[in-house]
Each structure stands twice: as structure tokens, then as C-alpha cells.
């Protein structure tokens, strides 16, 4: 139990640490852009100090020691001994990143390993230089950090649990020719103690044709129980020392030693790991440490031959199974430690509502017992109102401000603009717009991609900007707002915009469009989301935009959202992402075609009108003088039969486009709990999910965006009878 508590406390430490780092970064950037204030420096100092303090509680020395040095520097800034300037800010920002990586290591439980030794050493020297500039008495304090390796050793130097000697012995082919018999050495070794386990390495045995009877191809791995000293054991092999490779590890050796051993021996690490595990020299856990550390180190690429040989010789040993099992446990633990911060007010509101629901439930029971149908009906209604409010309240618990995503961009913009040598200002608006927590996490990557693209390709260099009559510094704007049941996120820049002609040329060249096709601007811009289109380096350089935009679109579509580009050539471009507010429950509008029920998201239903019988032979209808494309669900879904009564037209809107869908019957509004259709239907178009109706049947939720596309595709080619005869 204690361990579990400690684990969750560690999770809290990581989370708190991340928040503090974010605050620290914000303050650093504020100093850079708006200048030094005491308050800001204090904020940074407090952040570093608190991280150090909490890390100390857990004995995370690596974190404590590093933060301590950074803190010393900050302290000096605070007391006015040092002055913050550009280079120091950059250094402190990098320190923040490094502390972040240490926290990540704590999160996944690998804090015993140094995430980036070179970076740490470099940062410490840099920090030290600043510190040395004013005083030298801290030098002592910091001295141990000059040898991070040594420190790491102390931290990681857990001895392995095995209390046996481990001997690795590889004989050179000449041994037999020189008149030595390996067996006799082993027998002699037996006099010093007991050979507990012996594994003969026969990997070097050649094919029979190449086999030389006089050569020795053997090697041995031994577990040896003995009270003899290292020297005594070594002396056993005295006569062959020159003709062999001998490694002796005493009982309870450091894991480091095993790592070194594995590195020195000719066999592959996996193979050795398997033997070590079998022989009981290492426990699976220890082996895991050795192997991960071994992976972390750069090693020369082995020749292809050995690689192939290895992969065939080592059919995923026991080790892999044991290791993956441990990983699973770890992943699970990480998964459970996801936190969400909730406003107390929201929680109180939810609890109030639940209280009311309990009372309403009791009332309903009472009326039901009295068989008072009128009252029961009333009570049931009151309850469903409450259930609805509770739904809203509990969904709002999952809502977080999008600022959580936006807050990382000031830093990104700063770094990239430095890298590109462009002067770019970032403007963030609507950061308090809320959206579902699960979406926030998955939105970060696509947004990052769009922002990078805009800065790299959209915004011109200062010279180009001046030449085209703009101000020298470019501006990038992140904006978010709610609009009819979805959240809209915009990334705009005032750069060169998309070049319609270039995109079109490229698309023609790639065969994405036909020469005689006439495309609207929106359709042309949509081309940049085509896979393969973007990877063309040339396009990227010439027209701007496009690296991996198809990935962006895919990610957004996975969230049931959509992305579009607006652009004015020479003036700038805007990427607009539209996402549904939540993924769990929607207000649905139920319709019927034949016996089938379908659900449309209520937010996208504009109105319902009766379809006059004579209308709708074509795929356009005259709706109060406006032409409206429409389609019949019965035809699209191939449902047999005919509508018995008069058909209805449901007008749907998605983004800026509208279309109608013809159905047999309108059933009405209801709350639809979205059930995903699962992996099988991933690639289907036109359906966005399913829900379960009151009677237990499954109803499909239609994908409005897709329906609209189909409707407008159908209406193309229909004579534009309506617009002429309209009004």
C-alpha cells in the first residue's frame, strides 16, 4: 500500500514540476520580450526552488543537484549580483528543458539513468561560468558535477543479487595446438569451489567442411561458488591467459560491470543476456537495466552479415518475454496516473445536481407507489431534466482551456524564429476557450506542425517583407472560439499566402487534377492536404506550406474534426481547424427512412421542411429562393420501399456549406451516447458512430460533413433550374 501511495505522490511531483516549469518558461519569455521585473525573476526562482524541494523529498539526487546549481544562479540574479541578458535566458530555458527531461524520467521510473549526459555537463559548465564571474566559493559545491559519470555510478551502482562469481572464458583457436586442454582447467577450477552452472558457447563452430580438428572453437560462461580470492581464481587460468579472453566478475558486482562484460564479449548482447538470465547471474530486472543502458549508448553499426546472423540465431529469447511483461506493468502504472485539474466550483455544481437527482428519484418512487400517474409523469420529467444537467456538468469536468496547448507556443515561436533568422511576433487570443481534455492532448502535434509551417514557409524574411511593403516583423496569430457546437482554432500569419497557380501546376504534374477541371480557391487549397503532395521539396520552397499536411488532416479527422485553409496571395494565410466539443455525448436528431433509424447531430440541423411532392426530381431544391443541393437517404443507402406519406427535408449545415437530406419521417430530439463503431469501420465514409436507442436498438449517427459533400457532388451537373426560376 505504501508503495502505491508513493507512486501516486511521484505522479503529483511530476505534474507539479511540469506546471512550475511552464510558469518558469513563461516568466523567462516575458523577461525577454517585455523586460526585467523583480516579480518575474522571483517567479523563476520560486519554480526552481520548489522543484528542488519536492525532488529532495523523494531523494531524486540527480534532479536536486542540477536544480540547485540553477537556483544558485537565479538567487544571484535576484539579489542583483548578476544581470539577466539574452544568452543567460537561453541557457535558463535550456535548463528548464533539461529539468523537464529529468521529470519525464521520473515519470516512467527510469530516473536512475541520466537522460542526456552531454547536455547536463554542458549546462553545468555554462551555469558555473556565470557563477564564477562573481564568486568562487560555490565552485566546491559544484565540483562533483564535473564527473557526471561517477555520480551516475553511485546512483546506479546497485549490485546484482547473485552471490556467485561469474566467469566468461573464450578460448582462442590455438589453445589445443599449444597443448592445452580446456577441460583440465575446468577440473582444476573445481578444486577451488563449485561450478554451479556452465554454459558452453559454440557459436563459433564453423560448418563441418571448414572445421579444423585441431582448432578450439569453444567458450564458456560459468557461475562459480567459491570463497577464493580473485587472484586465486585467475591463477587457475595462468597458462592460457595469453590464449584466451577471460573476464571474472566477483559476487554482487555492479550492473555496470555486466554491461562492460556484454560489450567486450564477441556474442550479441541478446544472446549473452539470455545466457546470463538462464545461469541466474542476473535477474530479468537487472538484465533489463543492462540492456536498456546498452541501447542508450552509441555503438558502431555492425556489418549486415552479423545482423542477419543474429536475428536468425536469436529467436526472440525468454528475455524479450520477460522484459515486455515488465514494460506492460509499467505502462499500466503510467496510465493510471493521469490527472485532470478541476475547478472546485464545477465539482460543487455537479454534486448539487446529484443531490437533487437523489431527491427527485425518491419522489418518483413515492408517486409510483401511489399509482399517481400524473405526478409520476411530472417527476420523470424533472428527473430527465436533471440527468441532462448532470450530463452537461460532468462533461464540463473534462473541459479544459485550450490555453494549455497554446502555452507552449511562445517558446516554440521564439526558438524557431531565432533559428530562421526571422522576427516573428506571436499573438494569442481566446486561450480560455474550453474543449475536451482528450482532444487537447491530441491537438498539440498537428498545431505544432501548422505553426512551424507558417513560420518556415509562410512568413517571409525581413528583406522580402520590406520589399513588398509590409512591416519587417511578421506576425503569427493563434485564435480559438466556439461556434455552433464546435470549437474553431485558427493559425493565421501575414506572410506570402498560398500561390494558387503553383499549387495547381504541381497538382497537374502529379495527376491530382485534370487540366480541364475548374476548381474554386478552397478546392485548390485543399490540395495541399493530399498525401504525397506535400513531400515535394520544391513546392514547399516555392509556394510555401505543405510538409506533412496530410498527417495534420488525418489527425484532425480522427477527432471528428476538419481543417481548411484560407489564403490571400501576398497577404497571408489562415489554417482553420474545426472540432466537435466533446467525444462522448451529443444532442441528436432522430429521423427514419423505411424502418431504419438514423441520428443527425442536432447542432448541425438548421431546419426541417416538408418536401413538396413535385420538388426534388433533381438534386437541387428551391428553398426560399436559394438553391439548396440535397440527396435522398433512401437512395444513398439503398433502402428498399417507398415513403408512405410526405417526405421531409432536413437542412444541414457544416462550416459554410449547407445541404438537405430527404427522410421519410422526423422522430425528434434525443441525447445520443456515442458508441464508436470500432476498428472495422475505420475506413467507412458517411458514418461517424452509432448510438443505442431507448428500445435497445442500434441507430447510426451520420457524418454530416460527408453527406454534404455527396449532396453537392450530386447537384453538380444538375441544370440550374432553381436559381433561374427562384424568388
Amino acid at each position: 500500500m505504501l508503495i502505491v501511495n508513493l507512486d501516486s505522490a511521484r505522479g503529483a511531483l511530476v505534474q507539479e514540476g511540469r506546471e512550475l516549469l511552464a510558469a518558469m518558461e513563461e516568466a523567462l519569455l516575458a523577461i525577454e520580450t517585455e523586460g526585467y521585473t523583480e516579480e518575474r525573476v522571483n517567479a523563476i526562482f520560486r519554480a526552481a526552488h520548489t522543484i528542488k524541494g519536492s525532488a529532495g523529498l523523494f531523494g531524486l539526487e540527480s534532479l536536486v543537484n542540477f536544480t540547485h546549481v540553477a537556483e544558485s544562479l537565479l538567487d544571484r540574479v535576484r539579489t542583483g549580483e548578476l544581470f539577466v541578458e539574452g544568452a543567460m535566458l537561453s541557457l535558463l530555458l535550456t535548463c528548464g528543458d533539461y529539468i523537464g527531461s529529468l521529470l519525464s524520467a521520473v515519470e516512467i521510473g527510469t530516473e536512475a539513468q541520466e537522460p542526456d549526459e552531454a547536455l547536463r555537463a554542458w549546462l553545468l559548465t555554462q551555469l558555473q561560468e556565470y557563477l564564477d564571474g562573481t564568486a568562487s566559493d560555490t565552485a566546491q559545491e559544484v565540483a562533483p558535477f564535473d564527473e557526471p559519470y561517477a555520480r551516475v555510478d553511485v546512483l546506479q551502482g546497485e549490485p546484482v543479487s547473485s552471490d556467485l562469481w561469474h566467469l566468461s572464458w573464450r578460448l582462442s583457436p590455438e589453445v589445443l595446438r599449444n597443448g592445452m586442454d580446456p577441460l583440465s582447467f575446468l577440473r582444476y577450477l573445481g578444486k577451488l569451489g563449485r561450478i554451479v552452472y556452465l554454459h558452453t558457447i559454440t557459436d563459433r563452430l564453423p560448418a563441418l567442411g571448414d572445421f579444423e580438428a585441431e582448432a578450439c572453437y569453444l567458450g564458456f560462461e560459468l557461475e562459480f561458488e567459491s570463497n577464493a580470492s580473485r587472484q586465486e581464481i585467475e591463477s587457475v587460468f595462468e597458462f592460457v591467459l595469453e590464449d584466451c579472453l577471460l573476464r571474472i566478475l566477483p559476487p554482487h558486482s555492479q550492473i555496470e560491470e555486466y554491461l562492460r562484460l556484454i560489450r567486450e564479449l564477441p556474442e550479441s548482447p541478446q544472446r549473452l543476456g539470455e545466457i546470463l538470465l538462464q545461469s541466474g547471474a542476473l535477474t530479468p530486472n537487472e538484465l533489463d537495466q543492462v540492456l536498456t543502458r546498452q541501447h542508450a549508448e552509441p555503438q558502431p553499426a555492425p556489418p549486415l552479415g552479423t545482423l542477419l546472423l543474429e536475428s536468425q540465431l536469436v529467436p526472440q529469447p525468454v528475455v524479450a518475454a520477460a522484459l515486455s511483461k515488465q514494460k506492460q506493468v509499467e505502462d499500466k502504472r503510467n496510465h493510471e496516473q493521469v490527472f485532470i485539474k478541476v475547478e472546485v466550483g464545477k465539482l460543487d455544481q455537479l454534486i448539487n445536481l446529484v443531490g437533487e437527482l437523489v431527491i427527485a428519484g425518491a419522489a418518483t418512487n413515492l408517486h409510483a407507489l401511489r399509482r399517481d400517474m400524473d405526478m409520476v409523469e411530472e417527476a420523470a420529467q424533472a428527473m430527465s431534466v436533471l440527468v441532462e444537467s448532470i450530463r452537461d456538468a460532468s462533461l464540463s469536468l473534462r473541459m479544459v482551456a485550450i490555453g494549455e496547448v497554446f502555452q507552449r507556443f511562445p517558446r516554440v515561436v521564439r526558438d524557431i524564429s531565432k533559428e530562421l533568422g526571422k522576427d516573428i511576433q506571436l499573438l494569442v487570443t481566446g486561450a480560455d476557450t474550453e474543449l475536451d481534455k482528450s482532444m487537447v492532448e491530441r491537438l498539440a502535434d498537428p498545431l505544432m506542425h501548422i505553426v512551424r509551417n507558417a513560420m518556415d514557409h509562410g512568413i517571409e524574411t525581413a528583406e522580402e517583407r520590406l520589399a513588398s511593403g509590409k512591416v519587417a516583423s511578421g506576425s503569427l496569430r493563434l485564435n480559438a472560439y466556439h461556434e455552433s457546437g464546435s470549437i474553431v482554432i485558427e493559425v493565421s500569419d501575414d506572410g506570402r499566402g498560398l500561390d494558387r497557380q503553383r499549387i495547381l501546376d504541381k497538382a497537374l504534374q502529379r495527376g491530382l487534377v485534370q487540366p480541364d477541371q475548374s476548381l474554386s480557391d478552397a478546392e485548390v487549397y485543399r490540395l495541399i492536404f493530399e498525401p504525397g503532395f506535400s513531400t515535394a521539396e520544391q513546392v514547399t520552397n516555392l509556394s510555401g506550406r505543405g510538409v506533412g499536411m496530410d498527417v495534420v488532416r488525418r489527425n484532425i479527422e480522427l477527432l471528428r474534426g476538419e481543417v481548411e485553409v484560407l489564403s490571400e496571395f501576398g497577404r497571408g494565410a489562415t489554417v482553420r481547424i474545426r472540432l466537435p466539443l466533446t467525444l462522448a455525448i451529443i444532442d441528436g436528431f432522430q429521423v427514419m427512412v423505411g424502418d431504419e433509424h438514423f441520428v443527425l447531430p442536432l447542432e448541425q440541423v438548421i431546419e426541417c421542411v416538408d418536401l413538396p411532392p413535385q420538388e426534388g426530381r433533381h438534386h437541387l431544391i428551391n428553398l426560399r429562393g436559394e438553391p439548396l443541393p440535397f440527396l435522398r437517404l433512401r437512395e444513398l443507402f439503398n433502402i428498399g420501399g417507398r415513403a408512405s406519406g410526405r417526405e421531409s427535408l432536413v437542412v444541414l449545415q457544416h462550416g459554410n456549406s449547407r445541404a438537405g437530406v430527404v427522410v421519410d419521417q422526423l422522430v425528434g430530439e434525443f441525447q445520443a451516447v456515442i458508441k464508436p463503431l470500432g476498428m472495422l469501420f475505420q475506413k467507412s465514409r458517411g458514418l461517424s458512430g452509432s448510438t443505442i436507442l431507448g428500445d435497445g436498438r442500434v441507430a447510426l449517427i451520420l457524418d454530416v460533413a460527408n453527406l454534404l459533400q455527396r449532396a453537392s457532388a450530386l447537384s453538380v451537373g444538375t441544370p440550374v433550374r432553381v436559381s433561374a426560376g427562384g424568388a
Partner: protein
Amino acid sequence: MSSLAIHHQGRALAIAEAPLTQQFLTLTLGQELYALPIEHIREIIEFGGLTEIPMMPEFLRGVINLRGAVVPVVDLSVRFGRQRTAIGRRTCIVIVEVEQEGAAQMLGIIVDAVNEVLAVDANQVETRPAFGARIRADFIAGILNQNEQFVIVLDIRQVLSVEEICELVGMASLEK
């Protein structure tokens, strides 16, 4: 020494526990008998109607509500290139679990009837014939000889390959 001994003991135990008999559920489809290894089967339910899904390949008959989870239902007969299964009194849906990329996917299959559970010695399952069967060869895991009648053991991972079905679903919904 201790760890070595434990390792060996563990291995010996594992061998002793290795199942010598395998259990299969036999089911009728059209006029033929098929068998499914029992470890894939979650439950068997009576056919109680389903919701058809438009724009799907024909063998994907629809979805059912299985205690709040939406489960797709496959018509095996159509999957084997034959007529749609007519719904009768004994029609059942067998709920199976297929694993794909580490995630378990529940699927229902419509069958004309389920018969019995057979316990068969592992060596009694013969390898599939190179030809002669009327369904795709990779759907067959082996052949059982039961009372002079041949029963085809289905390879459920192939028959209900999530990957393949996904592709077919994608194609079917694009055709429209």
C-alpha cells in the same frame, strides 16, 4: 543453483500441463459442418434482429447491441461466397473475439445452428487439403474427421481478418 533448479522445474511443469485435447464448437452453415476452436468464442446468443449498415460489403450484415457495446455481425455464408443466410428459428449469433494489433475486437457471426462442443486429440486435426474445399484455402485451419463426416476447422484470424475487413469496408463506402 537454486535459480537453475527452478527454471528446469518450471519447464517440466509446462510440458506436463500442455493440453493434449483441443475443444471445438461445431456449427452448421448451409448444409455443411464447421468447427471453431473454443478459445475464441465469448458467447452464443439467439438472433434477435440487427441494425443494417448502409454502404458496407455484403457479408457485413450489420451491428447488434450486446449489453451496451456495438458489435458488428458477419454473415459467414456470404463471406464464403454463397447466399445470404436466411434467418430461421435456430439461427444464432456466435460472439467471437479476434485479436488485432494487441487489441481485442468482438465480432458476431451468423450461423444456421450451433451443434455441440467436441473434445479432440490434438493430433486428430489433419492439415488442410491443398484443394477440394469449396472455401478459400487460407480460411481453413484443418480438417476433423467426426463419425465419417468431415468438419472444416476454420482459421478465425483469416476468416475475420480485421485488416482485410477494414479494407473492404473502405472500398465499399467509396464506391457509392
